[in-house]
């Protein structure tokens, strides 16, 4: 079985991350070694003409932590299952670690934690790691070494020889994560890894993600917990009704919505507008301007643009309570992505309706 250790495959993490970022910015059409995941036109239609995926294009660079977001029924788990050969795609041209999706030997280098996984209750934590390690093709001597280390990493050493049927959900999740690392994978796909885990456990899992990234592994996380993703992900993709609505770094995705807010003391909008000598919603320099009671919002992340406004306000004798840059959270980004562009209403959960040439117009940054 082919086992590439992370150190062999990833000489320096920084160099790889940079290379991945550079590679992402270029347009390549075939599976490239710079990408851990390179998907093009992934379609999945279930029986009854339910279109779960409508042409997913997605690239995940090697050595990065990538988050996949989306409302219920957006097709996130379907996409992950296609990558892991659990579900057969209707149509796709994708590559995983440089090999076509569905190439079974490649899976020896991929770790996977499914959502709502169940382990046989008759096995102990150590036996689970041993069994799935063997199924991944790991030799016995390596399994023996890794079981102790991984259980220690997820804080389950004391429970190693206890039957899984006595575990809590969080404990099962910890063992599940350890299981996904048994084959020393270059790519780890975690489907809702913090599901059922307490805050302390979440912090531990976040630490594990960072550690995996530091070891040069690619981590692909599918999660609902946006704050968790925001804390660890280099890049994210938002999946809505079977299409990628947006993908890129959090910074780049929020670029357009960054702004400065100036909060004044005891004043109202007309006075403020008078002080700014501006009746419209755009500054002379082109940035958007919004005044709501005693708050001024300027659509820029450039502090230089804000300075004249501060001067004007102070010159008019108004008192500034605060001046702060505002960056939208991942949640804001997510909520915007799942709103219908025309109606502004939050889209209903589930797969997209069967509409020919359904396209929501995804955005890549």
């Amino acid at each position, binding site marked *: 079985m082919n086992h590439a250790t992370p150190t062999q495959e990833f000489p320096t993490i920084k160099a790889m991350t940079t290379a991945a970022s550079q590679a992402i910015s270029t347009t390549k059409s075939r599976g490239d070694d710079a990408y851990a995941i390179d998907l093009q036109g992934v379609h999945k239609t279930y029986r009854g003409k339910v279109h779960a995926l409508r042409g997913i294009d997605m690239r995940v660079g090697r050595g990065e932590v990538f988050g996949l977001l989306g409302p219920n029924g957006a097709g996130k788990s379907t996409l992950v*299952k296609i990558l892991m050969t659990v579900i*057969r795609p209707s149509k796709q041209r994708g590559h995983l670690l440089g090999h076509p999706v569905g190439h079974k030997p490649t899976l020896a280098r991929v770790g996977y934690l*499914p959502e709502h996984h169940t382990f046989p209750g*008759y096995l102990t934590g150590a036996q689970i790691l041993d069994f799935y390690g063997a199924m991944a*093709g790991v030799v016995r001597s390596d399994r023996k070494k890794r079981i102790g280390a991984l259980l220690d990493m997820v804080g389950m050493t004391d429970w190693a020889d206890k039957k899984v049927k006595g575990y809590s959900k969080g404990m099962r999740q910890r063992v599940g994560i350890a299981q996904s690392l048994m084959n020393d994978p270059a790519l780890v796909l975690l489907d809702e890894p913090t599901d059922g885990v307490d805050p302390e456990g979440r912090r531990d899992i976040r630490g594990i993600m960072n550690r995996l990234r530091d070891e040069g592994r690619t981590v692909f996380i599918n999660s609902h917990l946006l704050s968790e993703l925001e804390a660890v992900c280099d890049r994210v993709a938002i999946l809505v009704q079977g299409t990628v609505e947006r993908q890129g770094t959090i910074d780049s995705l929020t670029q357009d919505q960054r702004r400065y807010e100036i909060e004044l003391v005891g004043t109202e909008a007309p006075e403020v507008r008078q002080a700014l000598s501006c009746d419209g919603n755009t500054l002379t320099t082109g940035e958007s301007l919004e005044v709501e009671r005693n708050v001024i919002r300027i659509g820029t992340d450039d502090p230089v643009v804000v300075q004249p406004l501060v001067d004007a306000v102070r010159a008019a004798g108004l008192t500034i309570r605060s001046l702060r840059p505002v960056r939208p959270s991942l949640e804001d980004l997510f909520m915007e992505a799942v709103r219908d562009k025309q109606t502004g209403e939050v889209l209903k959960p589930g797969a997209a309706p069967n509409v020919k040439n359904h396209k929501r117009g995804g955005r890549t940054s």
Partner: protein
Amino acid sequence: MRQTLALFVDAYRELNAKKMFWLVMILSGLVVAVFAAVGINERGIQILFWTLDTEFLSTKAMTKEFFYKQVLFVGLGIGFWLTWVAAILALVSTSGMIPDFVSGGAIELTLSKPIGRARLFLTKYVTGLVFVALQVAVFSVACVLVFGLRANYWEPRILLAIPIVVLFYSYLYSVCALVGLLSRSALTALLVTVLFWFVVFLFNAADAGLLSEKLRHEQMAIQRETRVEAIDTQIGLLKDRQANETTDDGRDAMQGRIDRRVGDRDQEAEKAASARNAMNAWGAWHHRVYMAKTILPKTGETTSLLGRYLISAEEEQEHLEAAQDLVEDRDQPDEREPDEVPPVNRRDAERDSAQDMQTEFRERSLWWIIGTSLIFEFVVLGIATFIFARRDF
């Protein structure tokens, strides 16, 4: 190989965690203990230090080896315990293996490993046979030891029970695996498999019953035809005697006897023809059932192979004759007139037809018994593997 071994180890761990596995193992141990306590002597069955007067189960009717091989091991151990009681308990225990294997949350992890779906499913299927393989292995080895130590009868061929019983169980388990995969329900898989087994049992019973009737009528027809020939010979003799008669009265008397014999002959010929017709009718039905059985797994015949390999046709014949001798010793002496043609003997016809039936069953080819059963199994497994390989989980 590593993955195959892991699946087998997992199957053992799963069985080890089941109470039913150990319950059946303990019960198997008890059956072997009973075997160790039972023997035969000249009077009958000996249980520890006590003897029950059972002439038909004594050294007069059979050898000790035959008793251990046929009566205890093949008849009770395999024929009743392993292929009925233990097989049902094994089905109860293993019917959930495939539904559990393909259940949501479990199958994703296994499918995501670098192992092909067909290999994965077929290996999982084979691990389902571990239950029966372990049970029959322990039981057979224990029987070899018990018979050897107790009666100094060492028969390693008893171990042939291991592949034979596993093969028999594999026919049923293929159906169980297919239904388990389709329904994802252990209970449905169990019920459908037991129902299927019952259908196969009905076909086996119909095969045996119809063949028995056919052969019995054949023997009756042969006996009656033999009798017709004997009466014809007798009529010829009577006609010779009539020709030698010097008086009219004597010739008339002889004619009267000839006429009666002719009447008997015609009546007998009619009955012989009737028996032949019945034989043909039963034979036609038996042929249909036999053809239908060809596409079904031969559960009964497969387990009977053990008897075929352990007990030779000569041994079986000797036993039948010894048993027949015991029966005839008790019969009333034949009080027929010396020149009278022997009447039709139903008991003889039944005995001969039973021997014919045993011969027919013994002559059924290994290809027909195992080959066609394996074709059935491969077809069922092929369908299941195809479904498993193409299904989205």
